[in-house]
């Protein structure tokens, strides 16, 4: 695993943040939480995480907008993003073109599977 094991998690629902933090920190990751898009942006800029997990629907800035903003920064463009969305929600390839959103996971998700996904991405097994 790379030296950087910080993950920024962004969701306006506190219980999701807690569940994610519980699962990820028990696996050794350092989690930085954010309650909306703007906070997430601040934390990302501050901590330069290895990965970002973000909800789609958030106040101040949606997950998609956040991803686009990250894409426009050279240093953040390569940071992989997992987007959490409501079931049945879909994004077109156009939506995703200006982002580095690697995966989309629907809610409710299996925390176990999400952790496995995070580990895969950070191990470099999945590009």
């Amino acid at each position, binding site marked *: 695993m790379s030296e950087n094991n910080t993950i920024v998690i962004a969701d306006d629902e506190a*219980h999701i943040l*807690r*569940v994610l*933090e*519980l*699962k990820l920190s028990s696996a050794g990751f350092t989690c930085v939480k954010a309650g909306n898009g703007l906070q997430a942006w601040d934390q990302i800029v501050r901590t330069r995480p290895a990965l970002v997990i973000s909800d789609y629907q958030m106040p101040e800035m949606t997950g998609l907008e956040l991803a686009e903003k990250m894409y426009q920064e050279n240093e953040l463009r390569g940071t992989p993003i997992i987007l959490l969305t409501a*079931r049945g929600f879909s994004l077109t390839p156009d939506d995703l073109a200006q982002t580095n959103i690697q995966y989309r996971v629907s809610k*409710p*998700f*299996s*925390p*176990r*599977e999400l952790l496995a996904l995070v580990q895969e991405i950070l191990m470099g097994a999945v590009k």
Partner: protein
Amino acid sequence: MFKEKSETYLSELAEQLSQSWSKLGARVCWWNSYKELNILDLDDPGIAKEAACQSTVEGKPTAFVSSSGNGNAFPVFSNGRCLGSILCIFPPNLLEQSQALFEIFHKNIDHLHTNFRTENELTDLSRELSGSYEELSLIYKLGEHFQITDDPATFLNGFAEELMELIQAQGLLLLINHRLSGGETCLQVGNMPVPGEGAKAVCRYLTQITGTRRETLILSDISTHPSLVRIFQNTEVGIMARPILVEDTPLGILVAVGTNQYDGFDSTDAKLFGTIGEQTASFLQNSFLLADIQELLTGLLTSLVNAIDAKDPCTRGHSQRVAFIGRRIAESLELSPKECAQVYMAGLLHDIGKIGISDHVLTKPGKLTPEEFAIIQQHPVIGAKIISSVRPLQNILPGVLHHHERYDGKGYCEGLTGEQIPLMGMIVGLADCFDAITSERTYHSAKSFTDAINEVRQCSGSQFSPAVAQALLNYDLDKLEHDLKSIGDHNHEIQALPSLNWIE
């Protein structure tokens, strides 16, 4: 374990308090119920210890005076249990204010303590929530991903591992009763201490107990069930069982087995298990219905084929040979298994239209008059009409309708030319001719295989499509001759068809 927990907690609490209160010159330390005091450099630790002890016994703050200053011991409780005591000693210069300060300190402890407790609760809740998410996720997955064309083993494997992890079971069993054939299948996943027949026996026994009650049975240990103990050779086994019912008809049973390492199945596990059981019932019901449909259809086809045979005994077996030869040609052309099965069916039914032709024309020895010939030529159209009302047979219609077309366009009924003729029609047509040449007929005697091959070669391009003819010539003809001689009842070929799933 408890000691560690309280130690960490008390020391954390003391640490937090110390950070702010030490600025005033106060000293904060802790004493846990194991009679250990963490700060040993008090001049008179004995007094402090005594006060701490008393505070925990009486359940309220106990003041004491030490050489370092005035002190107070505040007991700390969690979940009704006493973890120990936090001690605070103010230096002599704060003597006047110490009363008030102790009150504030006490409140401080309470707030911090509440925070810690709440934080713990939140973590516990998050853990529960996480578990619920896993369950939900599993149920959604089941709902979205199973296909009724899956076989039961695939279906079971789709959720088995996740389920076993969620409920902490070591093995899963699924017993399925095939109501049609009266047989039983027992599937298992995971580490079953009793594979094979033992597993079946366990399921049967549990089916007896659960009957047709739409409930999940939990057996925390099997000591009250001697039959099970005999099978498992062990009493440290936990069982959860859910009958798979469709409208009170038992289709089988789903069983989870927990062995030595298992934790016990609780009501949450039972609820999830019940939901999975219902999904399984849905799946099995649909599978069985699909099998019913396929069986119905093949039964129907068998009847039709028997009708052809009954109509004209001289050509008994012709249809099945045409089907057989046709399928070999299709295989030689490397068509998909589904297409090969369809060609087979088309071959079986290609002459069904002869039912509509009167006997005296059909079995007339010698030459036919033009009018009689015209009547016979109707049989492909009649055949197509007969099968056209059966929707799943639409796929084989071209084989029946066009089996008398010729590559050069001089065939009947529509006079199609070359590649206009559907492939299935060309294949069946060739197979039909080939068998006719090599059989006894009212209008000619049987020719040898070799002669038949030559005729096919000669007619390639005129009567037959070159590609199709070549496919027949490419086939191992000795094998074909041999196989044709040994075709018995064609029923077993028909029975094999449902497994090919050729119905759309």
